[in-house]
């Protein structure tokens, strides 16, 4: 594939064919617990888009200019986690200070996703796949949108599910996991579209 087109294909791939949630099954914890309601799903979804789109390039800079030159690639797990945590905390403080409505809708979700494995996963994939700075940003943004799409779809289904008869033993997380499985299979339908390793 032509290099100039790589960011574009990465963007779409991370939303559809390599959806971080549905193909890698990362970030399922908050996905399962928060998808009960559409409103909270929207808030968390937007928060994930924001955090992924910002922390991925940030971690790229740290990796490229701090870890690589000193040969400290093996420290990337711990360093990425610290960077993500500090950044999310700072953002939360800033939002709380300057925008009440934004804090209401988004801010309170930020601490929830500080240690979300999907966020760390995106930063690690970016290293493994050797993306450039711009591609990393696009990859983070796309993955966030992919996660957003998945949780919104799930919230929609779960709203309908309230009127459905579910076997008592499967109520809650059980049926949600099964539905997530079906959604993952449905998303496999996109797989012929773009392939990104």
């Amino acid at each position, binding site marked *: 594939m032509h290099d100039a087109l790589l960011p574009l294909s990465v963007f779409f791939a991370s939303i559809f064919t390599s959806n971080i949630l549905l193909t890698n099954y990362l970030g399922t914890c908050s996905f399962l617990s928060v998808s009960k309601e559409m409103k909270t799903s929207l808030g968390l979804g937007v928060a994930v888009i924001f955090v992924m789109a910002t922390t991925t390039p940030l971690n790229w800079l740290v990796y490229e200019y701090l870890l690589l030159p000193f040969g*400290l690639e093996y*420290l990337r797990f711990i*360093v990425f986690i*610290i*960077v993500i945590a*500090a950044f999310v905390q700072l953002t939360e403080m800033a939002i709380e*200070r300057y925008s009440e409505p934004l804090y*209401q809708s988004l801010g309170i979700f930020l601490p929830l996703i500080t240690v979300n494995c999907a966020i760390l996963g995106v930063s690690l994939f970016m290293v493994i796949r050797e993306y450039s700075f711009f591609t990393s940003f696009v990859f983070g943004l796309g993955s966030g949108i992919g996660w957003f799409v998945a949780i919104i779809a799930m919230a929609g289904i779960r709203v309908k599910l309230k009127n459905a008869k579910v076997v008592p033993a499967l109520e809650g997380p059980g049926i949600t996991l099964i539905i997530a499985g079906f959604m993952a299979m449905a998303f496999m339908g996109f797989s012929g579209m773009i392939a990104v390793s």
Partner: protein
Amino acid sequence: MVITLLISIAVISLISVFLALLMVIADATIGNYGIVRISINDGTKELEVKGGQPLLKALNQEGVFIPSACGGRGSCGLCKVRVVQGGGEYLPTELPFISEDEKKQQVRLSCQFKVKADVAIVIPEELFSVREFITRVERIRDLTHDIKEVTLRLKDGETITPLAGQYIQFKVPEYENTEESVYRAYSVASPPDDNTRVELEIRLVPNGICTTYVHTILKEGDEVTINGPYGEFYLRESDRNIIFIAGGSGMAPIKSILMDMAQKGINRKAMYFFGARSKRDLFLLDEMHALEQRLPNFTFVPALSEPAAEDNWEGETGLITDVVRRMVKDGPNSEAYLCGSPGMINACMAVLTELNVAPENIFYDKFS
């Protein structure tokens, strides 16, 4: 090898220091809300506190204690306070605990609501006298096989002035059954005129966090932190006859009220129905008989529901509700004070209503 090690430590430290520095700066700038003013009950009291912290914590630091059982984690829903000015929007973490009526009243969960600007709040007047006390266990004695009387002594020079019948919160420190300190409410059994001591009656509840702590770990001489006093369970001023009903450690507030009556010479007609299973569940009988001497119009009526054969019981038998129904004559001219388990209280309320005691004259303290 050593150099690689040093470099990696240096880099990690560098990143950590940089981020930590960033956080400190952020905390001092964007996290700094300056000094804000809290006006309580229409300006009765004005506090100046550091902004940005939860209201519950800010009030605590200034010596205004709002009852809270979970310690500010937003899970008990007890620390409600009316924020009449400067409240802003509800947080999603508060909503599960706030009803529609409370929303109209601007009731907030004070452990979640952060004071970022000047606010005006309304709290019950009595909370002004609520304080924290560091006490020492003066005495522990067995009242029955499962109830202990714990006497706490305040530090020299400190006094507590509960109304007879009110309760305090007992702070249980971390121990093997709890990972964090918790508060549990207990009625004060000692009379208010002894303002340097607090006497509690604590019944062992299987697996109860506080009761197990008191029964198995607490020793004489130990330090105990309490705060209070709280509560609406105290003797109302009137000429009506008084019906007291209690079971188990529900004895505590009633004993305090009776001793207060004796002290003040309040000689209203009063009957105290105390329900127990068998003789081994009865306690403080001598004290009750002494009170009967001091208060000529007072009668103590212990009743056993299942007296054991060896008890040789000659007093009242049967469920406490039946005994009350049998012995109370002038319901409409009575007021009742109940303290005990929710089951007992609900059953007694039904009987008292049958006996035409007006609902507004029934006061109770439910264990929960």
